[in-house]
């Protein structure tokens, strides 16, 4: 492009010269257009290598994930003996083990149950709380709102002991609801913050117009308000899902067998015959998939979610 562009520009300036009005203004314009053409040529050379850095970055980023997928299709013998960039004898044995052995697949089922429970509880508790923070002024509202977020600042390990003691006295240990409730400790504040941001983006006059039209509060909230902040609810649910899905410490401490999460199962696979690398890799791949699926649905709102709805 640059060559033909420069030729065309020269042609244009030639015609300008011939046009008779070839005063100093035209000369200046000509000089300017040549400068622009030069700059464009230089930028063209630079652009030829501009793909390099992102490509390297993406390769570095994707390498562990690729290696995990690679391993999950190999036999243990191949993993341990040779270095191969792709499976020499591709096998589905590792996945077959996971889908047939209850010790493995129940881990997924347990995780999904408590994560879903937690998401539902967190969002439904956070919705009215966020509405109150967004619409009403009350004594200490700002302090309370900030204090909520500080709950996220303590490492979960701090809460493991009190939860263990509390839940064992209520007989909740090794139940899905125990993990779901424990995760609420840091998911509810997060959901409140995200939802408050989205709700504050809806003008208060819409609420009032609805009341004037005769809507009762619950009806307004469900029929008018929730559709308006649907993307916010989606993002809040996604963040609750994600944090609950990756959290290991509390989930492991509060369960033993019947509600054991997949991540805990993965860390307990050392058998008499040593580690089963292939199965472990397959389990890893399957653990990534739900997150990737969920993130796909809220991909357009994630940035706003990370800014806690305040963009």
């Amino acid at each position, binding site marked *: 492009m640059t060559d033909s562009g420069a030729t065309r520009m020269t042609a244009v300036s030639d015609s300008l010269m011939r046009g008779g009005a070839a005063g100093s203004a035209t000369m200046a314009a000509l000089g300017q257009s040549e400068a622009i053409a030069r700059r464009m040529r230089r930028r063209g050379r630079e652009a030829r290598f501009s793909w390099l850095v992102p490509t390297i970055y993406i390769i570095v980023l994707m390498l562990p994930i690729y290696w995990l997928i690679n391993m999950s299709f190999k036999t243990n013998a191949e993993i341990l003996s040779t270095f191969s960039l792709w499976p020499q004898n591709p096998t589905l044995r590792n996945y077959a083990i996971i889908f047939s052995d209850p010790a493995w697949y129940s881990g997924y089922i347990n995780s999904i149950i408590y994560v879903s429970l937690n998401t539902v509880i967190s969002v439904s508790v956070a919705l009215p709380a966020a509405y109150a923070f967004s619409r009403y002024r009350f004594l200490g509202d700002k302090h309370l709102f900030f204090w909520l977020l500080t709950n996220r600042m303590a490492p979960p390990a701090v809460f493991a002991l009190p939860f263990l003691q509390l839940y064992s006295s209520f007989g909740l240990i090794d139940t899905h609801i125990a993990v779901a409730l424990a995760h609420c400790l840091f998911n509810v504040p997060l959901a409140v913050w995200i939802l408050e941001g989205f709700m504050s983006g809806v003008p208060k006059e819409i609420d*009032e117009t609805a*009341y*004037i039209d*005769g809507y009762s509060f619950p009806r307004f909230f469900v029929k*008018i308000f929730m559709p*308006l902040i649907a993307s916010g609810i989606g993002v809040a649910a996604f963040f609750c899902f994600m944090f609950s899905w990756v959290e290991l410490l509390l989930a492991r401490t509060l369960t033993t067998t019947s509600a054991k999460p997949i991540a805990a199962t993965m860390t307990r696979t050392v058998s008499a015959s040593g580690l089963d690398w292939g199965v472990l890799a397959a389990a890893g791949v399957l653990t990534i998939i739900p997150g990737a699926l969920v993130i796909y649905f809220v991909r357009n709102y994630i940035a706003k979610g990370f800014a806690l709805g305040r963009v």
Partner: protein
Amino acid sequence: MIELKGVTKTVGAETHIHSVDLRFERGTLNVLLGPTLSGKTSLMRLMAGLDRPTSGTVHFDGKDVTGVSVQKRDVAMVYQQFINYPNMSVYENIASPMRVARVAKAVIDREVRKAAELLRLTPYLDRMPLSLSGGQQQRTALARAIVKNAGLVLLDEPLANLDYKLREELRAELPRIFAEAGTIFVYATTEPSEALLLGGNTAALSQGRVTQFGPTIDVYRMPADLITAQTFADPPLNTVAATKSGLRFTLGEGAELPVPDHLRALSDGSYTLAFHPHHLRLDAPGDGTPPLPGRVTITEITGSESFVHLFFQEESWVSLVHGICHFEPDEQIDVYIDPARLMAFDGHGRAALPPPALAA
């Protein structure tokens, strides 16, 4: 009939509404006129029941409705911002109050189409409000207020965010649309010309107080006090301090003006004289009105009218004249006050005498 009795509203340490008494009859058009922050919106929210007065009571058709929630009141309201339900089509937006009231489907359809026809929204019924222009969005909000058929319709500067042309159109239509229903129609505006065009009654507001309430023309012609006169003047009212002795007003330092007939009854003393910009003339009326010396600061020309800003002594005045009239800054010109249009206010800002009823 809606009646406010001694209504006061304080928020934190600030008093937004100071002990307001107002009474609007059914089938009347009432304008709340005042500058921004004068309490128009606060007053409307109190009437609608969106806010509860700190003290005082609100009566609707004789019943005390002070604590009654907004859902149970017979009210419709349109905001200055274009407020619609973004997730519903224009049709559903208009139908919304009737849907809540569980009106029969056929009736809803008929009413929605009637209102849409009236506000020229028929081609947009299936569109979403946010895909419409500002004027169409506001017409949707107005249509919703119409179909509700409420006893009290509150319009809070509904045309302020619209462009000039649409504004003129809607302003002419609005009173007609709501007059049929026999409702109490309350319209808040910052613009005196809008109040005059709408007619009806006007309550002039200033800093949370109703300074005067009465038929719009009367309030305009016979303001009870200086604040009302200033609220009801655009461009701003010209004022000057004057001392009356016998048949002469002495304006500021030296200039003299004969006392016009309608102010003869005033006792001698100091007053504030006020007059509208279009009563300050640049050509000699030829009836012996003495010229006053003015120094031009700037001239604004709109085409059909010119605003000549000038200083008379220390007072900043505006003269509104027809046609194009251009002066250079600092040019010295003679100006003539139309003596028959002078208003006189005493030291407390109250009208010293009822002004002439025929002044316009």
